[in-house]
């Protein structure tokens, strides 16, 4: 088989057309298609099984890559670039606006934090229940935060004491903007009590 093909491939074009005439018509049919691609391509390059397979492999790899690319593009498509949400970092005023003991609810609706002045420290408590994410309410008369969903309760400092929640409320990063002296809250940076992060100086502002 290999011998036949290489001989017809090496033969000149005139030979290739005249030689099949000598053999039976059946063989001609089988031979001509085998000889033709060999002539069309460069010397010695034949269509072998291996060669055919590698083209198939290129095709499959290309196909897989195209499908993979489409899936990746689809996945990326589902992640929006622009959000219509309140900014995570915002200013809330000056330290004098928050007298000792206050739980300021003015920023809860729009920004989702309470500014709390408790025991000489100003903190920004994130108004999301650490149980399953409902918004607790500040109950002034009972001096606690209470979640309406499953009844978790938190002290003014954010430590949980009742209900199903497993951990205290979270604090957002709070600092004084050096430019205008206003309080800057950054919700993208959180401080968790159970990880000992409430001693981090970025998690509170010392007030008298």
């Amino acid at each position, binding site marked *: 088989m290999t011998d036949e093909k290489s001989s017809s491939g090496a033969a000149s074009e005139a030979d290739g057309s005249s030689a099949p005439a000598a053999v039976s018509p059946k063989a001609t049919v089988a031979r001509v298609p085998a000889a033709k691609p060999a002539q069309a391509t460069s010397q010695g390059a034949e269509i072998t099984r291996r060669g055919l397979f590698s083209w198939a492999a290129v095709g499959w790899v290309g196909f897989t890559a195209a499908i993979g690319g489409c899936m990746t593009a689809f*996945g990326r498509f*589902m*992640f*929006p670039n622009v*959000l*219509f*949400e309140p900014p*995570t970092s915002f200013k809330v005023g000056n330290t004098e606006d928050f007298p000792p003991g206050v739980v300021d609810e003015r920023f809860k609706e729009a920004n989702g934090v309470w500014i709390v002045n408790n025991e000489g420290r100003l903190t920004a408590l994130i108004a999301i229940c650490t149980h*399953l*994410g*409902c918004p607790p309410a500040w109950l002034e008369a009972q001096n606690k935060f209470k979640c309406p*969903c499953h009844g978790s309760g938190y002290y003014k400092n954010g430590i949980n004491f009742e209900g199903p929640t497993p951990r205290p409320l979270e604090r957002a990063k709070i600092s004084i903007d050096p430019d205008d002296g206003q309080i800057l809250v950054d919700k*993208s940076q959180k401080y968790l009590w159970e990880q000992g992060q409430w001693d981090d100086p970025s998690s509170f502002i010392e007030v008298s």
Partner: protein
Amino acid sequence: MQQLKDLQKAIVKSQIWKSIFRVGIPTDNRKRALATLGNVVLHLHPIKVKKSGLRMSYTWCMGGTSFFLFLVETITGLLLMFYYRPTVEYAYFDMVDLREVVAFGIMRELHRWAAHAMVIAVWLHMFRVFMTGSYKPPREFNWNVGVILLVLTLLLSFTGYLLPWDQLAIWAITVGSNMARATPLLGHEGPGAAFLTLGGEKLIHVGSDARFGLIAGRTIGGGTLIRFYVLHCLGIPFVAACLMAVHFWRVRKDGGISGPV
């Protein structure tokens, strides 16, 4: 009388009739078989049904009921789509209007009750299949298709729950989607996510994790609403319908509705 007969003959002989029914009135078994093969409505129904398959006390007809409720959901849902706009401004008020001012204000109620009923029917269907051992070979593949259909039913319920856009809806989806935070590797609070960093920057954070992709934001908002709406009305029903076709086809190929052994 004769005229009526002539009319019938004219209709049955007409090109239109023939093009639809092909074989004509089946009078022998061969023609009956051809009629069944050449007509999609007849073809959808199995040629033979086991007597035991008709016994309500055995099947509870819960599979059929689930499918019937799916059809109810499709039709009522389609009608609701004529009035409901999935935007933050309109969603809630359109939902109220559907009850208060749109003719046949029961349509939304029908959709809601049928949804609850469908979840119950699917569970009961699974319960029956499990208790009768109908998940065993050769039906084990179809059991798996059924499990996926169960998940899709629950997802339809979940996505539909947000659409009224009231407090219950928003907070239920808030709580529900918070589970996605704990997705392994892909949720920003999930196991392994902390290891995915690039040059000290976290790759998986609250603005890039699975939950963010699911609800199109850090919190439930307008993006979530339209996303759930599309999934609820198009995405999930489409997948579910395809799998239902497979499910029903396999019921027949696996030997019909299972019966008592």
